[in-house]
């Protein structure tokens, strides 16, 4: 082999005057960066193994550690960046596809940050959420086109199945397998306490979590892992996963090493076998085929559960959404190109798909133009980072948002983006029992509940400031948004005016 050396990306800086050699860093690092040197009488570190997950930094009792980016760089080149060149080296050495985790980290525009929210002044009073009631509840599903009355003039309220949420946020799909048992337990408990939903992802539902069914969305993906009648009936809604924002056009990959014990049983596949979801659903090649699956699932659940169709935001998303709305689905979930993943080919994650803000605006507009907006609810995901992102999404036309990365951050994730190694030091994206136990679901669920309650307060304050007292009244209210630094084209797709207009 040739010379294949890449200087470590990070450096471990240990303040020797503070280090008490308690060796907590050594015990807590699954990458085996730290080690006690008996001969030298100090802690040593092998920074080539460090992924900058900050577990050691967080637990060091004397704050003796920090991780910094190595300044050993290749010669500056705006075209051939350091990262690009090193990727070439890696591929020249391995011959393999580059793998990455979590969402697209590249500096592409984040439209949320270029949209500003309105507030009331003088003529239309703002509302104080601490003094006046404010409604954050939403329900998702088909809405009736018109009010119908019976012979006596009473309103006929036979609604199609709906899901009720105490606030317009749900935890999006992360499979048992890609994340740990304790991560799922945290999400399930938190969703139940909050009155929202979490999502099984494509790995089936562990038998321990059937108890949380009323707050669970069960997912049917192209691999059909863990799908059976009881599973479908266990949740509050069923989601057909056609695509994922982080990797549009391909299916999920879970390596055989992670298919152990309960995961194998939950997925209904043999231990050690790779769980490779096909890129397409092999029975869906048209909207008519999709309609068949939607109604198969409705039939299997006696028409009691709404069906969600989740797609990645891609170029023709408006037309795709129109097709989905006509397939009989109750809810469309759109996942933007910044959405996270436990593992995806780097090139796909970083180059395929479109921003959720543009996709959402164009889908909402298209469905309104076609008069079918009430046939479906729209859920948007793919890097909803804060309460203000939620408010902007609702005003752009979403009925609710999916969040996953923010939820994982609440559980301890430090976005080191090495989920695919399966050695998550925070006990989230791993199946190693000694690492899984690092996430105590009692703490995890508390932190998720705190995060969502904080967002709920912020949502109320933001909409109260606009003089609005319910999420429903904000929905699709694009007059409440203004763009900054956007082109005419971007503004027209978003359907908003520029600031100052």
């Amino acid at each position, binding site marked *: 082999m040739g010379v294949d050396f890449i200087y470590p990306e990070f450096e471990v800086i240990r303040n020797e005057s503070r280090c008490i050699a308690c060796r907590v860093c050594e015990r807590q690092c699954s990458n085996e960066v730290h080690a006690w040197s008996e001969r030298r009488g100090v802690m040593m570190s092998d920074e080539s193994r460090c992924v900058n997950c900050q577990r050691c930094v*967080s637990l060091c*009792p004397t704050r003796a550690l920090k991780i910094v980016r190595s300044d050993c760089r290749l010669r500056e080149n705006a075209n051939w960046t350091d990262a690009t060149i090193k990727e070439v080296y890696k591929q020249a050495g391995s011959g393999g596809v580059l793998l990455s985790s979590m969402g697209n980290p590249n500096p592409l525009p984040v439209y949320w940050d270029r949209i500003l929210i309105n507030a009331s002044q003088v003529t239309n009073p703002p509302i104080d959420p601490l003094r006046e009631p404010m409604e954050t509840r939403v329900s998702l599903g088909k809405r009736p086109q018109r009010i119908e009355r019976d012979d006596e003039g009473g309103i006929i309220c036979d609604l199609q199945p709906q899901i009720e949420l105490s606030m317009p946020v749900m935890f999006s799909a992360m499979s048992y397998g890609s994340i740990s048992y304790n991560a799922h337990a945290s999400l399930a408990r938190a969703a139940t306490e909050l009155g929202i939903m979490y999502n099984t992802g494509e790995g089936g539902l562990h038998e321990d979590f059937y108890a949380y069914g009323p707050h669970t969305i069960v997912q049917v993906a192209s691999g059909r892992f863990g799908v059976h009648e009881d599973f479908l009936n266990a949740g509050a809604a069923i989601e057909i996963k056609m695509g994922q924002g982080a990797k549009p056009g391909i299916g999920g990959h879970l390596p055989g090493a992670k298919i152990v014990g309960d995961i194998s049983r939950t997925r209904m596949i043999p231990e050690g076998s790779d769980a490779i979801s096909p890129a397409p659903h092999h029975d869906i090649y048209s909207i008519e085929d999709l309609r068949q699956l939607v109604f198969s699932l409705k039939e299997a659940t006696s028409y009691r559960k709404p069906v969600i169709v989740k797609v990645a935001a891609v170029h023709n998303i408006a037309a795709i959404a129109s097709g989905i709305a006509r397939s009989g689905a109750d809810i469309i979930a759109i996942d933007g190109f910044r959405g996270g993943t436990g593992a995806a080919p780097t090139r796909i994650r970083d180059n395929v798909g479109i921003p959720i803000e543009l996709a959402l605006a164009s889908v909402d507009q298209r469905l309104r133009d076609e008069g079918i907006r009430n046939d479906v609810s729209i859920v948007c995901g793919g890097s909803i980072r804060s309460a203000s992102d939620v408010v902007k999404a609702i005003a752009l036309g979403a009925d609710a948002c999916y969040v996953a990365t923010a939820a994982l951050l609440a559980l301890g994730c430090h976005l080191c983006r090495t989920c695919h190694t399966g050695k998550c030091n925070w006990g989230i994206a791993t199946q190693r029992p*000694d690492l899984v*136990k690092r996430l*105590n679901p009692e703490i995890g669920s508390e932190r998720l509940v705190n995060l969502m309650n904080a967002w709920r307060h912020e949502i109320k304050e933001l909409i109260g400031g606009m003089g609005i007292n319910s999420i429903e009244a904000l929905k699709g209210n694009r007059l409440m948004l203004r763009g900054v630094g956007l082109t005419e084209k971007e503004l027209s797709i978003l359907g908003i005016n520029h600031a100052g207009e």
Partner: protein
Amino acid sequence: MRRVFVNEEWCLACHLCEYNCAFANSGMDDMVLALKGKPIFPRIHVEGDERISYAVSCRHCTDPICVKSCIAGALSKDGDVIRVDRNVCVGCLTCVLVCPYGALAPGPDGVMQKCELCLENSCGEPACVKGCPNRAIVYEERGERA
């Protein structure tokens, strides 16, 4: 009374409790000065192996056998907390022999020391509980102890 309990399911064997204990009982306000370059004598010990681990400290038994067997009368019940009077202890290690939990150990001077729940040191609450990163060590009421 409230006691220190360990939920072994969540113990990570990180040993932070031992260092927090040693610091809390050091009488110093600087962890580095208190612990750097010295052997530590904590009143809580992590035991176990790679599969299961748990921190062990005094159970503060309702009917403590160590108090009964102390030949010098150094161990006593102060309310619900079992304390050792280090000026009276003769270092005979009888309490080490009789304690079914292995919760007592001598300090650097050979005199016995034990968990007194940090009630009178600088921490004011059990330091092991306060510093446990995974809530494996808790301080709560669970009824009487034999």
